[in-house]
């Protein structure tokens, strides 16, 4: 069952997600560094902004997996949509590990 999504469209979706994921997280990190440089003393806000950028970057591959799941589901490739969902679940389960 094809629902109107081609391989090329899935590729374009992933290209955009990775491109914007990297550069937007880079911009947030740069903003955090700028805030830190402009502040007269070390502050929590700049570190929090930089950390938000780092977290956005770390979650970019998870976003890519979620979009692969969506794209393959739209293309009627249920098997690969399920694999993408399984890998996404595995990836974000790293949050559960605490020493």
């Amino acid at each position, binding site marked *: 069952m094809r629902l109107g999504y081609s391989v090329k469209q899935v590729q374009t979706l992933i290209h955009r997600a*990775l491109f914007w994921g990297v550069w937007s997280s880079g911009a947030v990190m740069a903003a955090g560094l700028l805030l830190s440089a402009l502040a007269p003393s070390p502050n929590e806000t700049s570190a929090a902004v*930089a950390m938000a950028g780092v977290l956005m970057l770390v979650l970019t*591959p998870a976003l890519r997996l979620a979009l692969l799941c969506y794209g393959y589901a739209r293309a009627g490739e249920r098997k690969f949509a399920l694999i993408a969902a399984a890998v996404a679940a595995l990836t974000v389960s*790293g*949050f559960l*590990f605490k020493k």
Partner: protein
Amino acid sequence: MDIAQAALLAGLGAGVGILGSVFGIGGGIFLIPALVLYFHVPMHFAIATSLITIIATSSAVAAVNVERGLANMRLGLSLEVSTAAGALGGAYAASLLSPSALKLLFSLLLFFTAGTMFRKGLSALRGVKGEDGAAAAQTGELGGEYFDHATRETVRYGVKKMPAASVISVAAGALSGMLGIGGGIIQVPLMHLVCGVPLKAAAATSNFMLGVTAAASALVFYRQGAVIPDMTALLVIGVLAGSAAGMKLLAGMKSDKLQMALSLLILAIAVKMFSGVF
């Protein structure tokens, strides 16, 4: 952190990015020793930082390779089940190991990498060329095709021995999660030699996978509080700038002699790291 230290870190990131894009090696091989030996960053924090820079370079390069059709997304996704599971296990194991044990394992990995790079450079100097042929005429559901700009031909290939590749990929993921490297040193030969994927597609697919493998283990380190935001941000921005510059400016610089020289540098780093363990 003062301005001089910040500039040094951004410069280190840029240098790692340039080396990575010119030689196709993960930045962790250089970044982790530099952070541990010269910036005195604890080993676990250095591994976490390296994993995050790997996500940045992998995602930036994969964005291009996916659009060109060079990265085989179905194959990458299928192997990511194994590498992500291995990465989670590797990162958790790293959190249980002492910094000295991790340094020892990392220095052993550096010895192996130096040897592999030296042999590759030597083979290229002697004119021995690797095969880059397709595995099978039947591409199957995991097979793929891409346009090779060097030969101006469309290359079609199949994928074989997936069960074996899946098992070995667990080890590649574990190594990545435990030592903060990309894992391409295992994944590329695995896809090329075991699965029969042409080298260019294997390298692009491995790069595509690295982001997910590194993210799985980076989240473990993040949860354990092993991420230093300012330092990581500086290095990521440096690595991204270095990778972009490396791809545009230095592609023609790649030489077999330079690769051999670099392998000697890695050997020297391995000796320094190894001697610091005891």
